[in-house]
């Protein structure tokens, strides 16, 4: 089953390109470390999931590119074509001239409705190219105007037009110290609205990825290209083909469905974080060896201590002991706060995956009591190595990972809202103070729910 990707705004298009690029290079890679048959099976599954075939044999990404100004899309299309390995369907894009001016209201209330039909037609065409549609993957930032505002509107349209398909929103959390001054407003409006129409929000934080680039990848002058490549690698490590259950003989056909089923038992809890291990520059890769117990141990501690990468993890954080009550109503600001999970998905790739023992992930102390510990943890595996890493593990978690972040962004937005700064820019496009208040209310509710896990 196939996934259709909708790339929204500058960020969405830049990242989308890196994702397809990473996936394509991965399935062409000769470092699969598995049998030829396995490799062929993997390649076929990956191709079907993300690309359609053309007569020329060059895979065509299953994607719709949307932006309100032309430069980024034009660049994205030509970069892909130049690679020679894959390309976009050059009909499958829509752009305008003016941009959204970093204004969520402009993206949502003006551009969205105005161009809805054209865009949905493009999506429909892509969906029809799929033998079976698993669902949609949208890529957008929260800080700007098109990805955030228009992206939110498009998500609603997707939900209306495809009520039974899964929708996963890949959302980029902006740098804390600004990229866009009104990013907190745009983020609050985006998150609160997406909560209504999306199945799950998979979040990447620019600050965290930036640190990975600096400390793990050792990149001196970090560009957005570098950041986007790390994000693409992380997404690839989750969404490339895997076997979703023990003893499965076929690569999973419904990755989005499996993901939602495993991770989103309750619609109030849709915020997912992503962690990946190991992560390093290609030069270092050649000199490193890893053991599964080591990787799993680190990944688990990253989960419970809410670390975003494998260096600088706080090893002091421990799960509460059985018999001892969990600290009441933990405040989102409390340091050393133990990260409680609702559900986790672990994806393992490479050598000896069959031997991996995930007992430490299944400890009941890590989870809320709603699900059986067996159901709270799902595992996807493949012996086929990913992107030259002999062994790699990824974690998608529905936990308190994003609680502090969300609380911070709502706090800053509220602070600005109380002074009424910039509101005239939104009201002129039809988003009123009341709409803001609704959004704040929705998010305070989400924060409260996650805090009381």
């Amino acid at each position, binding site marked *: 089953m196939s996934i259709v990707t909708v790339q929204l705004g*500058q960020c969405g298009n*830049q990242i989308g390109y890196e994702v397809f690029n990473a996936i394509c290079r991965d399935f062409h890679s000769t470092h699969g470390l598995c049998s030829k048959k396995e490799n062929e099976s993997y390649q076929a599954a990956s191709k079907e999931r993300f690309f359609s075939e053309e007569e020329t044999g060059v895979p065509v990404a299953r994607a719709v590119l949307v932006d309100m*100004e*032309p*430069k*980024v899309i034009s*660049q994205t299309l030509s970069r892909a074509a130049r690679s020679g390995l894959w390309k976009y369907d050059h009909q499958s894009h829509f752009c305008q*001239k*003016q*941009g*959204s*001016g*970093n*204004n969520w209201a402009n993206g949502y209330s003006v551009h969205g409705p105005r161009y809805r039909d054209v865009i949905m037609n493009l999506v429909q065409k892509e969906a029809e190219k799929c033998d079976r549609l698993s669902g949609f993957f949208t890529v957008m930032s929260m800080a700007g*105007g098109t990805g955030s505002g228009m992206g939110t509107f498009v998500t609603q349209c997707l939900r209306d037009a495809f009520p039974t398909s899964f929708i996963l929103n890949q959302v980029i959390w902006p*740098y*804390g*110290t*600004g*990229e*866009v*001054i*009104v990013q907190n407003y745009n983020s609050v409006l985006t998150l609160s609205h997406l909560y209504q129409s999306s199945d799950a929000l998979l979040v990447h934080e620019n600050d965290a990825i*930036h640190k990975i*680039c*600096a400390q793990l990848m050792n*990149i*001196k*002058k*970090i*560009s*957005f*290209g570098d*950041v986007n490549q790390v994000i693409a690698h992380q997404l690839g490590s989750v969404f490339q083909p895997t076997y979703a259950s023990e003893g499965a003989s076929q690569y999973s056909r419904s990755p989005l469905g499996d993901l939602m089923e495993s991770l989103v038992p309750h619609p109030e809890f849709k915020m997912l974080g992503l962690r990946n291990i190991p992560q390093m520059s290609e030069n270092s890769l050649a000199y490193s060896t890893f053991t599964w117990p080591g990787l799993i141990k680190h990944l688990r501690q990253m989960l419970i201590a809410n670390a975003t990468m494998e260096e600088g993890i706080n090893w002091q954080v421990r799960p509460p002991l059985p018999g001892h009550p969990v600290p009441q109503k933990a405040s989102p600001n409390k340091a050393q706060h133990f990260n409680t999970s609702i559900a986790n998905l672990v994806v393992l790739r490479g050598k000896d995956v069959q031997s991996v023992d995930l007992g430490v992930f299944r400890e009941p102390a890590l989870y809320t009591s709603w699900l059986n510990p067996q159901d709270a943890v799902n595992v996807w595996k493949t012996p086929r190595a990913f992107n030259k890493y002999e062994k790699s593990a990824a974690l998608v978690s529905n936990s308190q990972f994003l609680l502090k972040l969300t609380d911070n962004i*709502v*706090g*800053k937005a*509220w*602070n*600005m809202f*109380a*002074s*009424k*700064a*910039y509101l*005239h*820019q939104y009201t002129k496009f039809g988003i009123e103070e009341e709409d803001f208040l609704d959004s*704040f*209310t929705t998010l*305070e*509710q989400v924060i*409260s729910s996650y805090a*009381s896990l």
Partner: protein
Amino acid sequence: MTQSVVVQVGQCGNQVGCRFWDLALREHAAVNKKGIYDEALSSFFRNALLIDMEEGVVNEILQGPLREVFDSKQLITDVSGSGNNWAVGHKQYGNQYREHIVEKLRRTAEHCDCLQCFFVIHSMGGGTGSGLGTFVLNVLEDEFPEVYRFVTSVYPSGEDDVITSPYNSVLAMKELNEHADCVLPIENESLFSIVSKIHQMTNSGKLGSTVKQNSLLTLSAGRIKTEQEKPFDAMNNIVANLLLNLTSSARFEGSLNMDLNEVSMNLVPFPRLHYLVSSLTPLYTLADVNVPSRRLDQMFSDAFSKDHQLIQADPKHSLYLACALLVRGNVQVSDLRRNIERLKPSLHFVSWNQEGWKTGLCSVPPVGHSHSLLALANNTCVKPTFIELKDRFMKLYKKKAHLHHYLHVDGMEQSCFSEAISSLSDLIEEYSQLDATKGVPRTDPSRLKIAV
């Protein structure tokens, strides 16, 4: 691609505008060589309207190297000038030429398939630029309400030789308050000190041959300083570079684009507080190919020093409402972040916008440079400029000096003066109120409480 239309009004406006087109063509030609964006780029620049109520300056332009660029359809001229009288420029010539102006604007707008912005360039102290220029601003708002209006205004200095410049400036200010989306105030004194500084550095021999050819901020297109260059050319080139850099992200690619509508969105938190202090760094580029981080960092530091601002102001010691950094050239997001982190502690931001930074990265540097930075600040440091203007106005007004020259113009009344000074006073008051919050310990408003 979006287009902008430049409307240059009066002697100063046309002289600056002229420098702008000169440099713009140079930038266009340099990129053209590489074969990218040729037509689109030229369409961005085809759109100009030159207005002056005397012919001297415009005629010179039409005889100079730019004569190929403009044709008579883009001109509105008269012969007698405005006598440094805002009322003559605004009321008399305004009414007389309104139809003409609207017609020419409409025609230029028709050439644009996506008109995003009008740039008005003028001075505040005279009669035409100040009076007719602000009249045009009104027309723009009436006829093209959806299109942004960015105004580059040259403010008079204290020793201005036009006695009535305070009247003209304050009358113009009211119009800027009410009808401009963004104003970039410029003061000649600042331009002059920057020019002197560059002069000093290049002539002192300290840097000698390491200064990259063609990289001075003050250079005219393709020429090293010659005797033909006029005294204001160097200063006007700085302003021209300001406009080029401001529009660079709309014209060229980059990893984080910053379009003009984003500038207005992010830098104007309240409609009337739309005065942006600008600075351009570096003043010149040294010949190093690989710019060491230290030098890059110096570029960022300089952008915040009071010597590099284009008005006499010190943003570091006043309060920031918002700040935008548009970087061009071989600079990446990590350089940007590192410098924001480094400079933040020494800057005062308003309590509700503690991390109020808007950033843009454009891959193509200005001609002759490897990188450059444009900083735009919405900062209370504009207040002293406005207070001084008010004081100079009051000195004249109290004595009713020269008022009769204004009042005998049809449509001009005493109330125009009182309304104008009142508008300015209100603006100053808004800035004062914000200043009062500086340094006050922050108490965040309490959040919404949710029933569990």
